[in-house]
């Protein structure tokens, strides 16, 4: 049997430059992004950013992988029961072995938020709970007004993908989603719709880091 050969760091870099261009690749290679919540949004965003060559990801989630997550989140059947931060770190290292990871199996609160976000160039809000979303966004905007923040609201239900948009709310605050489809009102969660919203967030992050988002 042939042994597996993982491409070198330099091969990865050349491949990224070929597909993304020198400027974007160089900017991403210097960036740190904190992803708060590793569910349907966060697990997809993390994989996008790791593949794109972001230098470091900070991964935060208090939950374990559940069988109901497998329908839309980037985990495997063999990982059910495992903390999401550990499971996602394993999967990211298989996909993008040179990404730096710091991961926390913790719930983000007003008291501990600094630890997760202080060194990040961009904070990504990827929770599912609306009160947790509100807490994180308010804390980051109050304590770190110069930090870029990319949040999400509204990706449940069965509407078409085009109702999901990215809006710039203020100087450093971006919001993705349709703004209204609420899973707590009994709406479905469909993987492609959640992934569209995750892709909006990941693209916004890449655009901000590359100086393309004005």
């Amino acid at each position: 049997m042939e042994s597996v050969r993982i491409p070198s760091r330099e091969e990865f870099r050349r491949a990224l430059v070929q597909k993304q261009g020198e400027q974007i690749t160089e900017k991403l290679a210097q960036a740190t992004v904190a992803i708060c919540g590793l569910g349907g949004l966060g697990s997809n965003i993390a994989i996008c950013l790791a593949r794109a060559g972001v230098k470091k990801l900070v991964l935060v989630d208090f939950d374990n992988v559940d069988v109901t997550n497998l329908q839309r989140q980037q985990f495997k059947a063999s990982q059910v029961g495992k903390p999401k931060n550990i499971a996602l770190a394993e999967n990211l290292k298989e996909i993008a072995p040179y990404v730096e990871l710091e991961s926390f199996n913790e719930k983000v609160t007003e008291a501990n938020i600094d630890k997760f976000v202080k060194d990040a160039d961009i904070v990504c809000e990827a929770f599912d709970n609306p009160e947790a979303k509100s807490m994180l966004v308010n804390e980051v905007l109050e304590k770190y007004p110069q930090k870029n923040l990319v949040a999400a609201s509204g990706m449940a239900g069965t509407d078409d993908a085009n109702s999901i948009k990215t809006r710039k709310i203020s100087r450093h605050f971006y919001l993705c989603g349709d703004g209204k489809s609420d899973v707590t009102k009994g709406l479905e969660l469909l993987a492609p719709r959640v992934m569209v919203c995750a892709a909006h967030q990941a693209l916004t992050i890449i655009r901000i880091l590359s100086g393309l988002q004005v």
Partner: protein
Amino acid sequence: MNSNPVKINGEDVAAAGMTIAEYLASANYDTKRIAVERNLEIVPKAKYAEVVLEAGDVVEIVNFVGGG
């Protein structure tokens, strides 16, 4: 219609003179699920009851719904 309205989420609203807390209650917002920006600055939740909306203010109320 108030001739000097406040712009809230892109709409002209006769809310000048109200505190943010008063406006949020009148419009049935759940303050645990929102973020409020006034003239591009975040309004801390602890200040909702003291900040009075003025004519010409531009306010964004971001409402968070569940799912992710």
